[in-house]
């Protein structure tokens, strides 16, 4: 009784096998087209891979150039600040000299007064009056003082504008950080595509010190609005802090 059952099972398995072969026959063209697709795609992927590798190797150069720009602008800014320092020192010296001239002027006026009193002569009085008119010290003093104040104001404006160097250097540091992140992503992509060494890329990696901080949103604006907003927050905070302090006192 068991033999016919076994035979039936055998035929059943053979039928299963036949179905698998039939399915395989249907699958073969699909596998073939898949292989064709892959053989066409692999060179394309290799192209993409080499292109990414090439781009990745260029990134450190771009980052270094950004660092060079930061260093160059910092150097140039320092040189301008040196000149402003010299200008300010000169202005301080001019102000001192003007003060001395004022003191001498006061002394001269005292002497003229004494000469007038001693001479008691109309001709001498007229000559001294003419001399005083020629002197015109006060007007000249005002003009010079205004010029000094203008130079000071201009140097303040230059100093204000030079702060753009710090702001742009923070923006460039943010760009460098972004470039570094892109390089890391591309490097990991290359490793995933092809298990090749990227030691040559790593050796040129951008030098970004750990813990280096920058403000990616650093913004150069001379508008008073930003400081006004800060003042408003500071004042509100102080008011609320005062109220809290009062509650505790």
């Amino acid at each position, binding site marked *: 009784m068991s033999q016919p059952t076994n035979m039936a099972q055998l035929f059943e398995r053979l039928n299963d096998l036949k179905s698998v072969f039939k399915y395989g026959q249907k699958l073969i063209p699909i596998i073939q087209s898949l292989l064709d697709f892959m053989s066409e795609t692999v060179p394309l992927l290799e192209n993409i891979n080499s292109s990414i590798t090439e781009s990745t190797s260029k990134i450190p150069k771009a980052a270094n150039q950004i660092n060079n720009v930061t260093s160059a602008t910092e150097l140039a800014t320092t040189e301008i*600040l040196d000149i402003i320092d010299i200008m300010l020192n000169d202005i301080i010296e001019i102000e001192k000299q003007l003060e001395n001239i004022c003191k001498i002027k006061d002394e001269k006026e005292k002497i003229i007064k004494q000469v007038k009193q001693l001479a008691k002569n109309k001709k001498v009085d007229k000559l001294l009056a003419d001399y005083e008119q020629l002197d015109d010290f006060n007007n000249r003093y005002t003009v010079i003082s205004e010029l000094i104040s203008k130079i000071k104001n201009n140097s303040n404006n230059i100093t204000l504008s030079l*702060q753009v160097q*710090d*702001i742009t250097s923070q923006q460039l540091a943010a760009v460098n950080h972004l470039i570094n992140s892109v390089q890391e992503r591309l490097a990991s992509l290359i490793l995933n595509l092809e298990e090749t060494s990227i030691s040559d890329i790593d050796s040129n990696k951008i030098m970004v010190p750990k813990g280096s*901080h920058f403000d990616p*949103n650093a913004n150069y*604006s001379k508008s008073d609005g930003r400081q006004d907003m800060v003042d408003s927050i500071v004042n509100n905070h102080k008011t609320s802090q005062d109220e809290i302090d009062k509650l505790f006192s």
Partner: protein
Amino acid sequence: MSLKFLIVDDSVTMRRIVVNSLRNVGYTDFVEAVEGKEAIEKLVSDDKINFVITDWNMPGISGLDLVKSLRSNAKFANLPILMVSTRGVKDDIIEALQAKVSNYIVKPFTPHILKEKIEQILATV
């Protein structure tokens, strides 16, 4: 009151600008530090420093961490600290105030603003 300033900023340009601005408004005594750790060392070793002007974004100990660190020490609890930063977002300013900075200036600033804030701080000390 004779003031000795400690200027803390990793940017040599900004340190120079702060020094120039202070000189411009009549202050003459200052020392500089490149980041928070150096600032603390200078404060500990120099008792004459009685005013700190600090940036926020610095490598190592940031300006905000410097303020927090100083405020946690009784010796520096009332030390005038003026923060000068590019950060002009409300949340940042509130964070700085919560860390107990004495006042805040957003860059770029003029010597006039610097003088005004220093005087405001000194009026409350």
